[in-house]
């Protein structure tokens, strides 16, 4: 989705607010918003790419103005609405209007939740489950298309030439999992781009390098 979240290379956002924004949580509600999303992920359930997709679908002015953790909370809320777990009237009033099936949406205990965080997600499939189309050293070009849904190929490398530097393994495909269409496992490649290829004659230093991990579906032979 070519929306405002794809910020790489854009002009006009000013200086990095280093001094005053070293914090992670500025206020208690941000802290709780973080915990709430983590607590609900297994229960609803949703994965990170589904959550990112909801954030990307915010109107550009909201994306740029809302607090990071408010955006997280909106995304979580939208996913809960999609699963039929809350409705707009409840959200407006703050009062529960209907019960949900806890067997289908079981709450996660403290122990299980912290264990899940310590374990992490599973994104990979056995090597060899998909034969890579590209090899280390191959020249590739990033495809010019952009899915209207969630995707993980930034606009600034689209149509650009790069070199495969590593086959990272066989991973789930973000575009597919974000749409609830299953993992569509495929090789993910570490791709190296020259600054001059990406930014042209305006590159700060022509030989500087950019590295991105890109799914096979995003790439074609140069």
């Amino acid at each position: 989705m070519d929306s405002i979240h794809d910020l790489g290379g854009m002009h006009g956002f000013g200086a990095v607010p280093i001094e005053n924004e070293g914090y992670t949580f500025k206020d208690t509600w941000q802290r709780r918003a973080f915990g709430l999303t983590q607590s609900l992920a297994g229960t609803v359930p949703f994965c990170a790419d589904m959550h990112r997709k909801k954030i990307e679908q915010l109107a550009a002015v909201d994306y740029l103005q809302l607090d990071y953790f408010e955006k997280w909370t909106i995304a979580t809320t939208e996913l809960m609405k999609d699963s039929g777990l809350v409705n707009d009237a409840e959200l407006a009033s703050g009062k529960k209007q209907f019960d949900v099936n806890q067997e289908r949406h079981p709450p996660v205990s403290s122990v299980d939740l912290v264990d899940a965080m310590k374990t992490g997600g599973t994104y990979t499939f056995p090597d060899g489950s998909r034969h890579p189309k590209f090899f280390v050293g191959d020249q590739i070009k990033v495809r010019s298309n952009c899915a209207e849904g969630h995707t993980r190929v930034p606009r600034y490398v689209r149509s650009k030439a790069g070199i495969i530097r590593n086959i990272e393994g066989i991973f789930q495909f973000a575009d597919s999992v974000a749409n609830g269409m299953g993992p569509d496992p495929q090789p993910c490649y570490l791709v190296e781009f020259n600054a001059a290829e990406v930014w042209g004659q305006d590159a700060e230093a022509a030989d500087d390098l950019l590295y991105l991990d890109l799914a096979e579906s995003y790439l074609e032979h140069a």
Partner: protein
Amino acid sequence: MSDQDNDHFHGHVHDPIEEGAALRVRALEELAIAKGLVDPAALESVIEYYERETGPRNGASVVAHAWTDPTFKDWLLRDGTAAIHSMGFKGYQGEHMRVVENTPDVHNVIVCTLCSCYPWPVLGLPPAWYKGPAYRSRIVREPRKVLTEFGLNLSKHRKVQVWDSTAEIRFMVLPQRPENTDGLNVEELAAIVTRDGMIGTASV
């Protein structure tokens, strides 16, 4: 615990925009608890887990270990995932790690232009500027200028490598060990490593 949190909640709200956000979060939390979707204790536990057990001190100990143990350093750069997991730092957003080494010839810096991917087990949760539009838009296009604003003036002979976290692999920078640190032990070395050093916006 819930009462105490409610006190916190009321104690810190300042402006209307934040108040709106805080009310939104609170409404969702109360609904989720009322419907039995969230265990309030679990909510608190997961926040505490991140605040207490993750954070840049983990990454700093990885760096200090690499500075003092050439075999570990070699392993860390070859298989960051296994080397970091061997020190007990693993879990969500740290399942697949690549550690990139700063040298006299190369400076590395990490970003997530599309959202805010960050290696939670070794660095904790990211600072606000890492998630904001200025850093995300500029660090890929004009890394040298941005790094100068962070106080890092790189020689034009040093190559800058920017790592954009677009998939499931998370990056971490291995800073150069400063001069005149021969006398320091692992703990003392870890103490001089900063979060920004491991993002690549500081030298160490």
